[in-house]
């Protein structure tokens, strides 16, 4: 096979070689996000994290739902699934269980993950499968042109709440902690260096990791923009936070005033589902195993029916 045949004409890179920079994780097309969107910082941080972890594109599956941020898998040079609104976690769970050798990363927004997909987050957290969930939280519905999201602040005026939001927001950090997630972090898209470390930690963590990222919407959310976050953002590590202390983690996660914390809130080593599941212990991933019943297995099944 000639070198030309092995080169992807769109990316201009050798298909089989190891990435030489974070740029090798750039996808086939460029993001269609608004200029200045927080999601750029998240995408760049993810690409950098994957590169620094020395992963190859084919070892990664990025799964998203629907929303501006859910377009991310298309902008990443990795296997991708761009799926239904709110369903990235079930898709990612199925794919990871089918091939547990893949590094599976779910991505999406706050509406996708905390609204329509909220039920799946609760159960994926307690299930503790070895997945990384990256939520670009902009506290607004962007793709539908500006309505409240589950994380919008009370009284916020949007197209669906012209008289102000009457509902209280979800706190994704405390929710994930309460539901048993074993790695819960919050990042800020304007601090990519910090975010890269959180993402790397999440991918390396053996269990479910939620990384909620403040990723401001420059078009529809003028309340929680970069100017709002900049003076308030404080890092947990600067405060000597103990990541084993879930009560302190919840207290810090609830802070929403002059100080808003980012960093790793909790982590623990509760065994992951894939490490406990008997069926995955021996042999290759399920997707690569031989299909059907052996003669011996069939005989046993019939025997029990007699």
């Amino acid at each position: 096979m000639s070198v030309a045949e092995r080169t992807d004409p769109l990316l201009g890179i050798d298909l089989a070689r190891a990435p030489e920079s974070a740029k090798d994780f750039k996808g086939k097309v460029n993001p269609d996000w608004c200029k200045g969107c927080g999601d750029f910082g998240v995408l760049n941080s993810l690409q950098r994290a994957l590169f620094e972890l020395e992963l190859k594109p084919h070892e990664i599956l990025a799964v998203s739902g629907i929303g501006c941020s859910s377009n991310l898998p298309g902008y990443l040079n990795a296997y991708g699934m761009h799926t239904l609104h709110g369903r990235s976690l079930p898709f990612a769970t199925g794919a990871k269980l089918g091939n547990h050798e893949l590094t599976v990363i779910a991505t999406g927004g706050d509406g996708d993950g905390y609204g329509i997909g909220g039920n799946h987050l609760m159960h994926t957290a307690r299930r503790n499968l070895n997945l990384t969930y990256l939520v670009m939280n902009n506290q607004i519905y962007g793709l539908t042109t500006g309505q409240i999201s589950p994380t919008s602040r009370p009284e916020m005026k949007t197209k669906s709440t012209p008289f102000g939001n009457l509902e209280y927001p979800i706190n994704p950090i405390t929710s994930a902690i309460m539901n048993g997630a074993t790695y819960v972090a919050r990042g800020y898209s304007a601090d990519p260096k910090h975010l890269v470390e959180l993402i790397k930690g999440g991918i390396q963590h053996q269990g479910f990791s939620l990384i909620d990222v403040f990723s401001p919407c420059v078009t529809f959310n003028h309340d929680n923009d970069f100017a709002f976050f900049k003076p308030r953002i404080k890092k947990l590590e600067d405060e000597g936070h103990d990541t084993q202390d879930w009560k302190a983690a919840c207290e810090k996660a609830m802070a929403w005033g002059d100080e808003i914390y980012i960093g790793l809130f909790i982590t623990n080593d509760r065994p992951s589902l894939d490490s406990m599941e008997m069926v995955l212990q021996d042999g290759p991933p399920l997707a690569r195993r031989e299909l059907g019943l052996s003669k011996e297995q069939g005989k046993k099944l019939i025997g029990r029916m007699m």
Partner: protein
Amino acid sequence: MSVNGLDFTIGIGGAAGQGIATPGNILARMFGRRGLHLYAYNAYQSIIRGGHILLSIRIRDQEVHSHGDGIDMLLCLNQDTMDRHLNILKPGSWVIYNADKVEPGELPEGVLACPMPVGELAEGSKNKLIQNTISLGVMMSVLGADFGVLQEALEQAFGRKGAAVVEENVKMARAGYDHAAANFESFPTPLPEGEKPLAMWTGNSALAMGGAAAGVKFYCAYPMSPSTGVLHWFANHAHELGIMVRQVEDEIGVANMAIGAAHSGCRAMCATSGGGFALMTEAIGAASMMEIPVVYINVMRAGPSTGVPTKTEQGDLWQALGASQGDFERFIVAPVNCLDAYNTVPEIFNLVDKAQCPGIIISDLLISEGTFNVDPDLVDLQPEINRGDFLVDPSPNGTYLRYKDTESGISPRVVPGYEGFVHTVATDEHDEDGVIISDEFTHPHKRRKSVEKRARKFQGVVADVPAPSLEGPADAEVTLLGWGSTYGVIKEAIEILAEQGVVANQLPIKWIAPLHGDVVEDILSSAKKVILVENNHSGQFARYLRSETGYSPDGHIRKYDGEPFMPHHVVEGVLELMKTEESIYVPYQEIIV
């Protein structure tokens, strides 16, 4: 007992919690070992304790296709059973009851009463379920079976509970057996034996086992009657067969998780009932758009909404046809009986793998929860597995296009994990390379090409689906048309009609989509009179048939009271529709449960 050999139905009635399942299973196993054919239908309610249950176990010395037309031996575990069902017993039948607790009521003429002095026989046993064991002894004696067969079955059923439990049950069964031998009239001829022992299964276990044989490596579900038996089978066999089995938070999660697993390369399946299937439908469209093969099973129960959870109906045909938004193809198949349910799973997996699209199996409570015997030699444990255009050991060869626009419409598939084939699949409309075209510039020509590609690959596999064919004499006066689980009851109705001088045949429909409408229309338009039998009110298949062929049957037999057809319901319907101008006949359900 029919003159043509053994044809006998035992009814066991009681309340939930009275342990009907145990004697039912013991009887079924004994009959199976004796080589007798069995068809058991359990009429029950959505209640854990109380209510009324009637388990009908019909046995024959030849193949049995329905739960029959009546009860020949009624075991009353409570007064309610006696009060409800005594009136349907015909001369020559038996009624067995606990004489200490149940008043017999006025026995119809010719019905033999078998009162069991349970207190006396039980000799002070504190076991509340002991009347069940005593009655097994009574039944075996009346049927003229050897006690050793029952003893063996009891040892197997209670072995796990320890020697003392086995001993008590054998002793009580013996007491019942001896009491009956001394006091009750038994069968004029002893229970016959078949050629060889038969295996026992339910429709749900057949669907699950069919999945295992087809190579299912991922099964997930949310419990819902009457589909939960599939989950239980998989859960019990997960470790032994190396199958990932998960109970998921809801059916939305189930349906999408199955696609995720299928995308990784596993054969993936899930089962639910109508309400859960409604939640799954968006995912079915996703599987179509992303071109990922997954099999969804809908075990129908009476709807709409939560409906009647423990009753049967063929009411979800249009839900399957219309599952999910958008205009796309899917396979839909309604197995006609338990063995067919088993065979259908590998069949549909080969089709969905070939066409890279979703497939739907429609079962119903009658097949799924019924208990049946099967000749073990008929169970194909190594069915053909064909994964279609699926690259299992790919190596890079230029730019890989996941949705390559081929002549057949089928694009060679590579699953994640292989170097040099990185791509994104999407539920948004996409180009050949998987890049979505929906956002910035929805190119109408690209959209048209994608729609046509997906439709074309389905057209290419239509020939792989067998066309329906007529069963029975070609020159019949009446052609009975049915789909899915009505196959057996129609078959028996035809036998009864023949005895009454009416020549009928049957066109059973298993594959709903694709239908082979031209074949169906050819057969029906040359029939003398066509009557469509279906277990619903509005005639769902009648409407589908009209939409696909323009053909309308002459008459309809419909039942929508939650209970399945009995053969005489169909017979009476045919006779009625042959002599009147009416086009719809609705049978009366005489066994009230």
